[in-house]
Protein backbone atom coordinates (compact mmCIF):
# COMPACT_ATOMS: atom_id res chain seq x y z
CA UNK A 1 0.00 0.00 0.00
CA UNK A 2 1.55 3.24 -1.08
CA UNK A 3 0.98 6.19 1.24
CA UNK A 4 1.12 9.74 -0.05
CA UNK A 5 3.47 12.14 1.76
CA UNK A 6 0.54 13.87 3.37
CA UNK A 7 -0.93 10.62 4.64
CA UNK A 8 2.44 9.61 6.03
CA UNK A 9 2.77 12.92 7.90
CA UNK A 10 -0.75 12.52 9.28
CA UNK A 11 -0.02 8.96 10.41
CA UNK A 12 3.20 10.08 12.12
CA UNK A 13 1.36 12.84 14.01
CA UNK A 14 -1.33 10.34 15.06
CA UNK A 15 1.25 7.90 16.44
CA UNK A 16 3.00 10.65 18.39
CA UNK A 17 -0.28 11.82 19.88
CA UNK A 18 -1.18 8.26 20.88
CA UNK A 19 2.17 7.69 22.62
CA UNK A 20 1.88 11.00 24.45
CA UNK A 21 -1.68 10.19 25.60
CA UNK A 22 -0.55 6.77 26.82
CA UNK A 23 2.29 8.31 28.89
CA UNK A 24 -0.12 10.80 30.46
CA UNK A 25 -2.56 8.03 31.38
CA UNK A 26 0.20 5.90 32.93
CA UNK A 27 1.48 8.86 34.97
CA UNK A 28 -2.00 9.68 36.23
CA UNK A 29 -2.43 6.09 37.36
CA UNK A 30 0.95 5.41 39.00
CA UNK A 31 1.63 8.79 40.65
CA UNK A 32 0.60 9.12 44.28
CA UNK A 33 -1.31 12.38 43.88
CA UNK A 34 -1.93 12.84 47.58
CA UNK A 35 1.84 12.68 48.20
CA UNK A 36 2.45 15.20 45.44
CA UNK A 37 -0.20 17.46 46.81
CA UNK A 38 1.16 17.06 50.35
CA UNK A 39 4.74 17.98 49.47
CA UNK A 40 4.34 20.50 46.64
CA UNK A 41 0.89 22.08 46.94
CA UNK A 42 0.15 21.82 50.64
CA UNK A 43 -1.99 24.90 50.74
CA UNK A 44 -3.24 25.16 54.31
CA UNK A 45 -0.06 25.37 56.42
CA UNK A 46 1.54 27.56 53.81
CA UNK A 47 -1.25 30.14 53.99
CA UNK A 48 0.70 31.29 57.06
CA UNK A 49 3.38 32.60 54.67
CA UNK A 50 0.95 35.24 53.47
CA UNK A 51 1.00 38.15 53.37
CA UNK A 52 4.67 38.34 54.49
CA UNK A 53 5.95 36.43 51.46
CA UNK A 54 4.62 39.32 49.37
CA UNK A 55 5.02 42.32 51.67
CA UNK A 56 8.48 41.29 52.91
CA UNK A 57 9.94 38.64 50.62
CA UNK A 58 8.82 39.87 47.19
CA UNK A 59 9.30 43.47 48.25
CA UNK A 60 12.88 42.88 49.40
CA UNK A 61 13.74 40.92 46.26
CA UNK A 62 12.43 43.80 44.13
CA UNK A 63 14.28 46.39 46.24
CA UNK A 64 17.64 44.60 46.16
CA UNK A 65 17.33 43.99 42.44
CA UNK A 66 16.16 47.52 41.66
CA UNK A 67 19.07 49.25 43.36
CA UNK A 68 21.51 46.66 42.04
CA UNK A 69 20.23 47.24 38.51
CA UNK A 70 20.25 51.04 38.71
CA UNK A 71 23.83 51.20 40.00
CA UNK A 72 24.84 48.40 37.66
CA UNK A 73 23.42 50.43 34.77
CA UNK A 74 25.40 53.51 35.77
CA UNK A 75 28.59 51.49 36.28
CA UNK A 76 27.97 49.52 33.10
CA UNK A 77 27.53 52.70 31.05
CA UNK A 78 30.78 54.14 32.40
CA UNK A 79 32.58 50.84 31.68
CA UNK A 80 31.11 50.73 28.16
CA UNK A 81 32.36 54.25 27.44
CA UNK A 82 35.78 53.26 28.79
CA UNK A 83 35.76 50.19 26.53
CA UNK A 84 35.40 52.36 23.41
CA UNK A 85 37.62 55.22 24.65
CA UNK A 86 40.62 56.24 22.60
CA UNK A 87 42.88 56.34 25.70
CA UNK A 88 44.14 52.71 25.92
CA UNK A 89 44.49 52.62 29.74
CA UNK A 90 40.71 53.14 30.06
CA UNK A 91 40.11 50.27 27.66
CA UNK A 92 42.46 47.95 29.56
CA UNK A 93 40.94 48.79 32.94
CA UNK A 94 37.40 48.25 31.67
CA UNK A 95 38.33 44.97 29.97
CA UNK A 96 40.04 43.76 33.14
CA UNK A 97 36.98 44.57 35.26
CA UNK A 98 34.54 43.00 32.82
CA UNK A 99 36.53 39.80 32.30
CA UNK A 100 37.13 39.44 36.05
CA UNK A 101 33.56 39.81 37.23
CA UNK A 102 32.07 37.85 34.34
CA UNK A 103 34.57 35.09 34.98
CA UNK A 104 33.99 34.48 38.70
CA UNK A 105 30.79 33.12 40.29
CA UNK A 106 28.55 35.92 41.54
CA UNK A 107 28.28 34.16 44.88
CA UNK A 108 31.95 35.01 45.59
CA UNK A 109 31.09 38.69 45.39
CA UNK A 110 28.20 38.23 47.82
CA UNK A 111 30.45 36.38 50.27
CA UNK A 112 33.20 38.98 49.88
CA UNK A 113 30.82 41.82 50.66
CA UNK A 114 28.83 39.96 53.33
CA UNK A 115 31.76 38.60 55.32
CA UNK A 116 35.00 39.87 53.82
CA UNK A 117 34.13 43.57 53.88
CA UNK A 118 33.55 43.63 57.63
CA UNK A 119 36.63 41.50 58.33
CA UNK A 120 38.96 43.47 56.06
CA UNK A 121 37.70 47.03 56.37
CA UNK A 122 35.39 46.93 59.39
CA UNK A 123 32.51 47.87 57.09
CA UNK A 124 29.12 47.00 58.45
CA UNK A 125 26.82 46.81 55.44
CA UNK A 126 23.07 46.33 55.75
CA UNK A 127 21.48 43.49 53.81
CA UNK A 128 20.13 45.98 51.27
CA UNK A 129 23.60 47.51 50.84
CA UNK A 130 25.30 44.13 50.54
CA UNK A 131 22.82 42.68 48.07
CA UNK A 132 22.45 45.70 45.81
CA UNK A 133 26.20 46.46 45.82
CA UNK A 134 27.04 42.86 44.92
CA UNK A 135 24.41 42.84 42.18
CA UNK A 136 25.64 46.21 40.89
CA UNK A 137 29.27 45.01 40.79
CA UNK A 138 28.42 41.84 38.88
CA UNK A 139 25.63 43.39 36.80
CA UNK A 140 27.85 46.27 35.64
CA UNK A 141 30.23 43.81 33.97
CA UNK A 142 27.45 42.21 31.93
CA UNK A 143 25.57 45.45 31.27
CA UNK A 144 28.78 47.11 30.05
CA UNK A 145 29.14 44.63 27.19
CA UNK A 146 25.48 45.03 26.24
CA UNK A 147 25.73 48.82 26.16
CA UNK A 148 29.01 48.74 24.28
CA UNK A 149 27.36 46.65 21.59
CA UNK A 150 24.50 49.18 21.49
CA UNK A 151 26.85 52.14 21.20
CA UNK A 152 28.68 50.45 18.34
CA UNK A 153 25.40 49.59 16.60
CA UNK A 154 24.61 53.31 16.19
CA UNK A 155 25.72 54.18 12.64
CA UNK A 156 28.98 56.13 12.49
CA UNK A 157 27.29 58.87 10.45
CA UNK A 158 25.24 59.90 13.50
CA UNK A 159 28.32 60.97 15.46
CA UNK A 160 29.79 62.59 12.32
CA UNK A 161 26.63 64.59 11.69
CA UNK A 162 26.56 65.79 15.30
CA UNK A 163 30.23 66.77 15.28
CA UNK A 164 29.86 68.44 11.86
CA UNK A 165 27.11 70.63 13.35
CA UNK A 166 29.63 71.79 15.94
CA UNK A 167 28.62 69.68 18.94
CA UNK A 168 31.48 68.91 21.31
CA UNK A 169 32.21 65.16 21.56
CA UNK A 170 30.66 64.75 25.03
CA UNK A 171 27.49 66.58 23.96
CA UNK A 172 27.14 64.45 20.83
CA UNK A 173 27.66 61.32 22.91
CA UNK A 174 25.03 62.43 25.43
CA UNK A 175 22.32 63.71 23.09
CA UNK A 176 22.82 61.61 19.96
CA UNK A 177 24.70 58.36 20.48
CA UNK A 178 23.70 57.22 23.99
CA UNK A 179 19.91 57.77 23.53
CA UNK A 180 19.98 55.74 20.31
CA UNK A 181 22.15 53.03 21.87
CA UNK A 182 19.71 52.67 24.78
CA UNK A 183 16.81 52.16 22.40
CA UNK A 184 18.74 49.36 20.74
CA UNK A 185 19.73 47.66 24.02
CA UNK A 186 16.42 47.99 25.86
CA UNK A 187 15.41 44.34 25.20
CA UNK A 188 18.77 42.84 26.28
CA UNK A 189 18.83 45.16 29.31
CA UNK A 190 15.45 43.81 30.34
CA UNK A 191 16.88 40.31 30.16
CA UNK A 192 19.73 41.56 32.34
CA UNK A 193 17.15 42.70 34.92
CA UNK A 194 15.67 39.18 34.89
CA UNK A 195 19.09 37.64 35.56
CA UNK A 196 19.73 40.07 38.42
CA UNK A 197 16.32 39.28 39.93
CA UNK A 198 17.29 35.64 40.12
CA UNK A 199 20.82 36.42 41.34
CA UNK A 200 19.41 38.47 44.22
CA UNK A 201 18.70 35.07 45.82
CA UNK A 202 22.44 34.67 46.40
CA UNK A 203 22.22 37.03 49.39
CA UNK A 204 20.92 33.89 51.10
CA UNK A 205 24.54 32.74 51.77
CA UNK A 206 25.20 35.82 53.86
CA UNK A 207 22.17 35.39 56.06
CA UNK A 208 19.81 38.15 57.14
CA UNK A 209 17.28 39.24 59.70
CA UNK A 210 13.64 38.26 59.16
CA UNK A 211 12.61 41.75 58.11
CA UNK A 212 15.30 41.77 55.41
CA UNK A 213 14.45 38.30 54.11
CA UNK A 214 13.88 37.94 50.39
CA UNK A 215 12.02 35.20 48.54
CA UNK A 216 14.66 32.45 48.63
CA UNK A 217 15.32 32.93 52.34
CA UNK A 218 11.59 32.82 53.04
CA UNK A 219 11.15 29.68 50.96
CA UNK A 220 14.07 27.95 52.67
CA UNK A 221 12.87 28.91 56.16
CA UNK A 222 9.33 27.87 55.27
CA UNK A 223 10.45 24.29 54.69
CA UNK A 224 11.46 23.87 58.33
CA UNK A 225 8.73 26.09 59.70
CA UNK A 226 5.52 24.79 58.15
CA UNK A 227 5.94 21.02 57.65
CA UNK A 228 4.45 21.47 54.21
CA UNK A 229 7.10 19.68 52.18
CA UNK A 230 8.47 21.74 49.32
CA UNK A 231 5.40 23.94 49.07
CA UNK A 232 7.15 27.08 50.47
CA UNK A 233 9.73 26.76 47.70
CA UNK A 234 6.95 26.48 45.14
CA UNK A 235 5.44 29.67 46.57
CA UNK A 236 8.81 31.44 46.35
CA UNK A 237 9.29 30.18 42.80
CA UNK A 238 5.86 31.48 41.73
CA UNK A 239 6.73 34.86 43.26
CA UNK A 240 9.91 35.02 41.15
CA UNK A 241 7.86 34.19 38.08
CA UNK A 242 5.53 37.09 38.94
CA UNK A 243 8.53 39.37 38.35
CA UNK A 244 10.41 37.59 35.57
CA UNK A 245 7.60 36.51 33.23
CA UNK A 246 6.15 40.04 32.75
CA UNK A 247 9.69 41.35 32.21
CA UNK A 248 10.39 38.74 29.58
CA UNK A 249 7.09 39.46 27.81
CA UNK A 250 8.06 43.15 27.90
CA UNK A 251 11.46 42.37 26.39
CA UNK A 252 9.91 40.35 23.58
CA UNK A 253 7.39 43.13 22.82
CA UNK A 254 10.18 45.69 22.60
CA UNK A 255 12.22 43.41 20.38
CA UNK A 256 9.30 43.09 17.97
CA UNK A 257 9.02 46.82 17.42
CA UNK A 258 12.67 47.70 17.74
CA UNK A 259 13.20 51.35 16.75
CA UNK A 260 16.45 50.55 15.00
CA UNK A 261 14.73 48.46 12.36
CA UNK A 262 13.44 51.12 10.02
CA UNK A 263 16.06 53.78 10.70
CA UNK A 264 19.07 51.50 10.43
CA UNK A 265 18.11 50.48 6.93
CA UNK A 266 20.73 51.94 4.63
CA UNK A 267 19.46 53.83 1.58
CA UNK A 268 20.52 52.17 -1.58
CA UNK A 269 23.50 53.46 -3.49
CA UNK A 270 22.56 54.67 -6.91
CA UNK A 271 24.36 54.65 -10.21
CA UNK A 272 26.54 57.65 -10.87
CA UNK A 273 24.13 59.61 -12.99
CA UNK A 274 20.37 59.84 -12.77
CA UNK A 275 17.94 60.73 -15.53
CA UNK A 276 17.28 64.12 -13.90
CA UNK A 277 20.83 65.28 -14.51
CA UNK A 278 20.60 64.91 -18.25
CA UNK A 279 17.31 66.80 -18.06
CA UNK A 280 18.92 69.73 -16.27
CA UNK A 281 21.79 69.74 -18.76
Amino acid at each position, binding site marked *: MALSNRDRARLSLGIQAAIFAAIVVVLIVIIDWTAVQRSFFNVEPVMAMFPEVITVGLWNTVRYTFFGFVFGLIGGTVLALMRIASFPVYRWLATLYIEFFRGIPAILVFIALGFGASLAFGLNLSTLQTASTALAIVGAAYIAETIRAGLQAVPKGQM*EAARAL*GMPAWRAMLT*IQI*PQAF*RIVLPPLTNEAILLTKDSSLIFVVGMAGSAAELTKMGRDGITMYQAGMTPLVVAGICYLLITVPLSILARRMEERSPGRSSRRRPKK*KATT*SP*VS*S*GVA
Partner: protein
Amino acid sequence: MSDESANAGPMSTAPAGVVIEGLHKSFGEVEVLKGIDMSVEPGQVVCLIGASGSGKSTLLRCVNRLEDPDAGSITVGEFDATHADVNLDAMRQHIGMVFQQFNLFPHLSVLENCTITPRRVLKHSREKAEAEALHQLDLVGLKHLAQRRPAQLSGGQQQRVAIARALTMQPNLMLFDEPTSALDPETVGEVLSIMRDLARAGMTMLVVTHEMGFAREVADRVVFLDQGLVVEEGPAEQVIGAPTQPRTQDFLRRVLNPLGK
Protein backbone atom coordinates in the same frame (compact mmCIF):
# COMPACT_ATOMS: atom_id res chain seq x y z
CA MET B 1 39.70 84.67 14.49
CA SER B 2 39.20 85.49 18.14
CA ASP B 3 35.80 87.06 17.43
CA GLU B 4 34.78 84.05 15.40
CA SER B 5 35.89 81.31 17.75
CA ALA B 6 33.95 82.72 20.66
CA ASN B 7 30.37 81.49 20.69
CA ALA B 8 28.96 84.60 22.27
CA GLY B 9 28.04 87.68 20.32
CA PRO B 10 26.59 88.04 16.85
CA MET B 11 27.94 85.60 14.30
CA SER B 12 29.15 86.82 11.01
CA THR B 13 26.92 85.46 8.28
CA ALA B 14 29.06 86.63 5.40
CA PRO B 15 30.07 83.77 3.10
CA ALA B 16 33.52 82.39 3.84
CA GLY B 17 36.13 81.30 1.32
CA VAL B 18 38.26 78.17 1.44
CA VAL B 19 41.97 77.94 0.60
CA ILE B 20 43.60 74.51 0.44
CA GLU B 21 47.37 74.17 -0.03
CA GLY B 22 49.52 71.07 -0.37
CA LEU B 23 46.96 68.75 1.21
CA HIS B 24 48.08 65.14 1.80
CA LYS B 25 46.07 62.37 3.39
CA SER B 26 46.71 58.62 3.67
CA PHE B 27 44.63 55.81 5.09
CA GLY B 28 47.22 53.27 6.20
CA GLU B 29 49.34 52.48 3.19
CA VAL B 30 46.99 54.10 0.70
CA GLU B 31 47.67 57.73 -0.14
CA VAL B 32 44.29 59.20 -1.02
CA LEU B 33 45.24 62.86 -1.42
CA LYS B 34 48.65 63.56 -2.94
CA GLY B 35 49.06 67.31 -2.65
CA ILE B 36 45.88 69.23 -3.40
CA ASP B 37 45.90 72.97 -4.09
CA MET B 38 42.60 74.64 -4.69
CA SER B 39 40.40 77.43 -3.42
CA VAL B 40 36.80 78.55 -3.23
CA GLU B 41 36.09 82.27 -3.32
CA PRO B 42 33.48 83.59 -0.87
CA GLY B 43 30.03 83.19 -2.42
CA GLN B 44 31.25 80.79 -5.09
CA VAL B 45 30.00 77.29 -5.85
CA VAL B 46 32.70 74.75 -6.65
CA CYS B 47 31.84 71.21 -7.71
CA LEU B 48 34.31 68.39 -7.16
CA ILE B 49 33.97 65.67 -9.74
CA GLY B 50 35.88 62.47 -10.32
CA ALA B 51 35.62 58.70 -10.20
CA SER B 52 34.98 56.72 -7.00
CA GLY B 53 38.19 56.58 -5.00
CA SER B 54 39.61 59.74 -6.55
CA GLY B 55 39.69 61.33 -3.08
CA LYS B 56 36.97 63.94 -3.51
CA SER B 57 34.95 62.93 -0.43
CA THR B 58 38.11 62.74 1.68
CA LEU B 59 39.08 66.21 0.48
CA LEU B 60 35.66 67.54 1.49
CA ARG B 61 35.84 65.84 4.88
CA CYS B 62 39.25 67.38 5.54
CA VAL B 63 37.76 70.87 5.21
CA ASN B 64 35.69 70.50 8.42
CA ARG B 65 38.26 68.09 9.86
CA LEU B 66 36.07 64.99 9.97
CA GLU B 67 39.33 63.62 8.57
CA ASP B 68 42.69 64.83 9.84
CA PRO B 69 45.05 65.75 7.00
CA ASP B 70 48.62 64.44 7.20
CA ALA B 71 50.17 67.55 5.66
CA GLY B 72 49.17 70.83 4.06
CA SER B 73 46.96 73.68 5.18
CA ILE B 74 43.28 74.56 4.94
CA THR B 75 41.84 77.97 5.71
CA VAL B 76 38.09 78.48 6.05
CA GLY B 77 37.18 82.15 6.36
CA GLU B 78 39.04 83.33 9.42
CA PHE B 79 39.72 79.82 10.69
CA ASP B 80 43.02 78.06 10.16
CA ALA B 81 41.50 74.58 10.02
CA THR B 82 44.82 72.77 10.20
CA HIS B 83 46.29 74.81 13.07
CA ALA B 84 46.92 72.74 16.19
CA ASP B 85 45.02 75.15 18.41
CA VAL B 86 41.97 75.65 16.21
CA ASN B 87 38.66 75.39 18.08
CA LEU B 88 37.11 72.71 15.89
CA ASP B 89 33.63 72.92 17.42
CA ALA B 90 33.49 76.68 16.90
CA MET B 91 34.77 76.31 13.35
CA ARG B 92 32.27 73.57 12.50
CA GLN B 93 29.41 75.75 13.74
CA HIS B 94 30.17 77.95 10.75
CA ILE B 95 30.41 75.08 8.26
CA GLY B 96 27.26 73.21 7.29
CA MET B 97 27.62 69.69 6.00
CA VAL B 98 25.17 67.50 4.08
CA PHE B 99 25.90 63.77 3.84
CA GLN B 100 25.10 61.16 1.24
CA GLN B 101 23.17 59.12 3.83
CA PHE B 102 21.38 62.21 5.29
CA ASN B 103 22.37 61.22 8.86
CA LEU B 104 19.27 62.73 10.43
CA PHE B 105 18.89 61.82 14.10
CA PRO B 106 16.20 59.08 14.01
CA HIS B 107 15.21 59.44 17.67
CA LEU B 108 14.27 63.11 17.24
CA SER B 109 11.47 64.76 15.28
CA VAL B 110 12.23 66.80 12.17
CA LEU B 111 11.86 69.98 14.22
CA GLU B 112 14.10 68.67 17.02
CA ASN B 113 16.73 67.68 14.46
CA CYS B 114 16.86 71.34 13.47
CA THR B 115 16.73 72.82 16.98
CA ILE B 116 18.94 70.55 19.08
CA THR B 117 22.27 72.11 18.12
CA PRO B 118 21.13 75.77 18.22
CA ARG B 119 19.57 75.10 21.63
CA ARG B 120 22.22 72.92 23.23
CA VAL B 121 25.35 74.41 21.69
CA LEU B 122 24.48 78.02 20.79
CA LYS B 123 22.21 78.21 23.88
CA HIS B 124 19.34 79.73 21.94
CA SER B 125 15.97 79.79 23.66
CA ARG B 126 13.46 77.16 22.59
CA GLU B 127 11.25 79.84 21.00
CA LYS B 128 14.09 81.36 19.02
CA ALA B 129 15.45 78.00 17.86
CA GLU B 130 12.02 76.74 16.81
CA ALA B 131 11.19 79.93 14.94
CA GLU B 132 14.47 79.72 13.02
CA ALA B 133 14.03 75.98 12.37
CA LEU B 134 10.47 76.46 11.07
CA HIS B 135 11.72 79.27 8.84
CA GLN B 136 14.41 77.01 7.34
CA LEU B 137 11.98 74.09 7.02
CA ASP B 138 9.58 76.44 5.23
CA LEU B 139 12.32 77.36 2.76
CA VAL B 140 12.81 73.69 1.88
CA GLY B 141 9.02 73.23 1.73
CA LEU B 142 8.72 70.87 4.70
CA LYS B 143 7.33 73.03 7.47
CA HIS B 144 4.19 70.87 7.53
CA LEU B 145 6.25 67.78 8.41
CA ALA B 146 8.01 69.35 11.41
CA GLN B 147 6.51 66.90 13.91
CA ARG B 148 7.29 63.76 11.89
CA ARG B 149 10.14 61.34 12.54
CA PRO B 150 12.84 61.08 9.86
CA ALA B 151 11.88 57.44 9.16
CA GLN B 152 8.43 58.64 8.04
CA LEU B 153 9.94 60.81 5.30
CA SER B 154 11.09 59.95 1.79
CA GLY B 155 14.78 60.12 0.99
CA GLY B 156 14.42 63.43 -0.81
CA GLN B 157 12.49 64.90 2.11
CA GLN B 158 15.10 63.65 4.57
CA GLN B 159 17.87 65.27 2.58
CA ARG B 160 15.93 68.56 2.46
CA VAL B 161 15.58 68.40 6.26
CA ALA B 162 19.33 67.75 6.49
CA ILE B 163 19.95 70.92 4.47
CA ALA B 164 17.55 72.90 6.68
CA ARG B 165 19.24 71.49 9.80
CA ALA B 166 22.64 72.67 8.56
CA LEU B 167 21.26 76.11 7.69
CA THR B 168 19.78 76.69 11.16
CA MET B 169 23.39 77.15 12.34
CA GLN B 170 23.76 80.14 9.95
CA PRO B 171 26.86 78.68 8.28
CA ASN B 172 29.27 80.70 6.14
CA LEU B 173 30.10 77.66 4.04
CA MET B 174 28.17 74.55 3.01
CA LEU B 175 29.80 71.20 2.21
CA PHE B 176 27.79 68.65 0.22
CA ASP B 177 29.07 65.06 0.07
CA GLU B 178 27.24 63.38 -2.83
CA PRO B 179 23.89 64.69 -1.55
CA THR B 180 21.78 62.98 -4.21
CA SER B 181 23.64 59.68 -4.68
CA ALA B 182 21.44 57.75 -2.23
CA LEU B 183 18.15 59.17 -3.53
CA ASP B 184 15.49 57.62 -5.70
CA PRO B 185 15.75 59.25 -9.15
CA GLU B 186 12.41 61.05 -8.88
CA THR B 187 13.46 62.88 -5.69
CA VAL B 188 16.87 64.05 -6.92
CA GLY B 189 15.37 67.14 -8.55
CA GLU B 190 13.80 68.54 -5.38
CA VAL B 191 17.14 68.43 -3.56
CA LEU B 192 19.11 69.91 -6.47
CA SER B 193 16.67 72.79 -6.86
CA ILE B 194 17.08 73.70 -3.18
CA MET B 195 20.83 73.64 -3.61
CA ARG B 196 20.49 75.88 -6.66
CA ASP B 197 18.38 78.36 -4.65
CA LEU B 198 21.00 78.32 -1.93
CA ALA B 199 23.75 79.04 -4.47
CA ARG B 200 21.75 81.92 -5.95
CA ALA B 201 21.33 83.35 -2.45
CA GLY B 202 25.12 83.69 -2.33
CA MET B 203 26.17 80.76 -0.13
CA THR B 204 29.71 79.49 -0.53
CA MET B 205 29.36 75.84 -1.52
CA LEU B 206 31.77 72.98 -2.05
CA VAL B 207 29.87 70.09 -3.64
CA VAL B 208 31.03 66.55 -4.36
CA THR B 209 28.66 65.35 -7.03
CA HIS B 210 28.05 63.11 -10.00
CA GLU B 211 25.25 65.36 -11.25
CA MET B 212 26.95 66.90 -14.28
CA GLY B 213 23.82 68.83 -15.20
CA PHE B 214 23.77 70.50 -11.81
CA ALA B 215 27.50 71.24 -11.94
CA ARG B 216 27.18 72.80 -15.36
CA GLU B 217 24.25 74.99 -14.43
CA VAL B 218 25.12 76.04 -10.86
CA ALA B 219 28.87 75.73 -10.33
CA ASP B 220 31.14 78.72 -10.83
CA ARG B 221 34.05 76.36 -11.12
CA VAL B 222 34.50 72.62 -11.48
CA VAL B 223 37.49 70.71 -10.16
CA PHE B 224 38.26 67.28 -11.60
CA LEU B 225 40.16 64.96 -9.26
CA ASP B 226 41.87 61.76 -10.30
CA GLN B 227 43.99 59.50 -8.08
CA GLY B 228 44.38 62.13 -5.38
CA LEU B 229 45.43 65.03 -7.62
CA VAL B 230 43.67 67.94 -9.27
CA VAL B 231 43.86 67.12 -12.97
CA GLU B 232 41.81 69.97 -14.38
CA GLU B 233 39.90 72.93 -13.02
CA GLY B 234 38.14 75.92 -14.45
CA PRO B 235 34.70 77.31 -15.29
CA ALA B 236 32.02 74.61 -15.41
CA GLU B 237 31.33 75.23 -19.09
CA GLN B 238 34.96 74.59 -19.91
CA VAL B 239 35.74 71.57 -17.69
CA ILE B 240 32.51 69.73 -18.49
CA GLY B 241 31.81 71.15 -21.93
CA ALA B 242 35.32 71.21 -23.41
CA PRO B 243 37.81 69.40 -21.15
CA THR B 244 41.44 69.61 -22.26
CA GLN B 245 42.96 66.76 -20.23
CA PRO B 246 42.58 63.21 -21.64
CA ARG B 247 41.66 61.82 -18.18
CA THR B 248 38.88 64.38 -17.78
CA GLN B 249 37.60 63.63 -21.28
CA ASP B 250 37.64 59.92 -20.55
CA PHE B 251 35.82 60.31 -17.21
CA LEU B 252 33.13 62.59 -18.65
CA ARG B 253 32.59 60.32 -21.62
CA ARG B 254 31.90 57.40 -19.27
CA VAL B 255 29.64 59.44 -16.96
CA LEU B 256 27.61 61.17 -19.65
CA ASN B 257 27.33 58.13 -21.94
CA PRO B 258 27.38 55.08 -19.68
CA LEU B 259 26.52 52.82 -22.61
CA GLY B 260 29.46 54.14 -24.60
CA LYS B 261 27.62 55.22 -27.71
